[in-house]
């Protein structure tokens, strides 16, 4: 359990007007990041709103490792200041669009990592990242057989033999 750190002065001289946030990962790493980088995350934005209301800033504890967190921060830094339609809570949900080129490269990681990133992105409510990860995972399982999908997703077959052979799970249409 990491120590809860109370941040009473979050402005650092010489860093412009952006304030800093302290994020604490599940492996107890403290990561400092500029607030406006993380504003893409609805979760963080809500936390920050809470800080404003109570005039109390404290570290934000996150349930995933620093490795994943750093990856998410890398994503947010890249799109710092960019408008992404998916992240606009007021915009209509966009249709299926191709994965952005940078995202493709960014998400060229092993599948466990990908699954962790999507989970973190979901926790942090970064819709654009969730969408990109989901499409990357979908690309991995597209066209595969059920058995291959289990392999890729690391999932055991938990159907009973009866269920497996029943028409409804076979989905004969």
């Amino acid at each position: 359990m990491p120590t809860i750190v109370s941040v009473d002065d979050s402005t650092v001289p010489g860093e412009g007007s952006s304030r800093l946030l302290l994020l604490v990962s599940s492996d107890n790493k403290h990561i400092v990041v500029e607030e406006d980088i993380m504003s893409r995350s609805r979760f963080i934005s809500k936390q920050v709103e809470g800080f404003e209301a109570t005039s109390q800033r404290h570290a934000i504890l996150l349930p995933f490792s620093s490795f994943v967190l750093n990856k998410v921060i890398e994503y947010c830094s890249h799109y710092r200041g960019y408008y992404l339609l998916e992240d606009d809570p007021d915009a209509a949900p966009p249709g299926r669009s191709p994965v952005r080129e940078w995202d493709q490269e960014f998400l060229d990681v092993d599948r466990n990592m990908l699954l962790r990133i999507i989970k973190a992105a979901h926790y942090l409510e970064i819709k654009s990242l969730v969408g990109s990860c989901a499409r990357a995972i979908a690309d991995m399982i597209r066209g595969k057989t059920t058995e291959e999908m289990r392999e890729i997703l690391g999932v055991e077959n938990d159907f009973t033999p009866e269920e497996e052979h029943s028409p409804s799970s076979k989905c004969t249409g």
Partner: protein
Amino acid sequence: MLYTRAPHAHLRTSSSTPQRYGRRASCRVPPILRSSDDVLLEILESLDGRDIVMCKAVCRRLKKVVSETVSLQYKVELFSSGMLDSQHGPHTLTLAERLARLRSYNAAWRCLEWTTCGEVLPHLQDYSHSADVATSASIYSRRAEDSMQDTIMQQIPSQLRGIPERHTSLLIPAQISDIWSNVYTDAAQDLYVIVVGAYLGFRCFMRSISSGEDHPLGCGILEVITSLPPRPGFQTSVDICNAQILITICGRTSAAFEIILGNWQSGAVLSKQTTSERCGSYVNNGHPKAYFLDDDHILLEHLEPDACDCGHSSIQVYTIDSDDGLGATPSYTFVLPDFMQILYPPHRLSPLSKAWMAPRPAVDTGHFHPNPADRLLTVILSVPADRGQFDEHYVDIPLHTLRSYVAAHPGGVVPWAAWGPRGARATRVRVPRGLSAVYRMNEQGFVGGLRRLLLCPAADGAPMILLLDYHPQRIARGRLCAEGALEAGAEMLAALAIGGVETALPCLASAAPAPQALAEILDGFDQCGIRLCEDGMVFLDNPSVWVSAIKVAKVFSI
């Protein structure tokens, strides 16, 4: 506590770490299942119907997510019924309503009953021109009885698909009203083509279905001079792919036929080619068979084994060159097995299904429509059975298999094993014993969507209509089965590379007595043809006695 900014390098990820990280976590609960439903949903939403169906069988958790989400259910239902959501259709229904309609639509096909709601096409008992009837894309056309120059078009209504009933009529110019060879409708492009034989050539008249006038994009008339020797009884067939029109012409006494590639919008003939005398499909009543595989390729059957270099019957694919039209030699030769007897053309799913590639949405395609990617190529195999009889097997090969092969390979001869049932995940339908002798195909219709109609005798000898409802996608999920599951002809089928993959369908068969009118006229069914319109119209005709019986099955419920 005052803290300083972390070193910048700390924010960068090193690329070597993920591997180690992944291994360490692999022994725990699979990360995917620790994700919330929203995450799983997001992944599933990015997949198409086929993959969602496969995902459903992966584990309980995924199955639960799929079965609880309407949008995924709709995709699955569309996939398993071979339909697509209509882009241009009336979108007044919610997703849940469309799903419910699609389910009812699929369920309605499982019983074949004659409607009690009255004849949709009245006054046809004494109708005597079966040759000039066309059914396509739920549009039925025929000449008006009181005027030889009018053609009546009727759109078969579909309550569940949201297609209203509609009538239009088309005035045929006087000079061509005496005979016409062939009619073709492409509802997606609002196009009606009449191919009329003339001395030494043909004329194709292009009309708009909806207005009955000249088609706004069309040239009106496309004239073709044929180089085949003039002879009576020309037969033609037409296939249309966007602006391209493919006309094949064949005489009854010859197996040679001519392929003409044109542009129906400009009236230009791009290419004209006559095949050799030996490569036609004389076994199939001289019907010429050339179809578009896609925008750039034409598919042609060569039934004579020695008609091509490979020494077998084959399907040849010609590439359309934008300058020279058709190449002189085929780019691909898909070899058929020796004991294949007859090859039928790719069953034309309704041209309505080409709506997605049409330049403009011309017709109301309803809430959903058949998927053009599901067009099939049917190879009929006659396997010797006892007492000199033959068992017939239909091998339905999805054309997208050929398309993807052509897209990925430079050309050449493709052996059957590479593109046949196993490679193509084809569907095999074994036609019930004794049935093969008593029906005859009708070139125009026969299959509507993914359904096959047969006319066969019941136990008491009365004519029955048998509907086999199947789907090629189901076969993609066909399970590997033990050898020996196949019955008679197993050896042959093993040689076809069907053995080992149980491709028999979970096909739903329904039967209904044929209309009384037909039963009285016929003393046998061997001259009988059946057409099936995708919206439930069953059309029976008997060209030998020139009497047609038309009955509508399930029109209002479908």
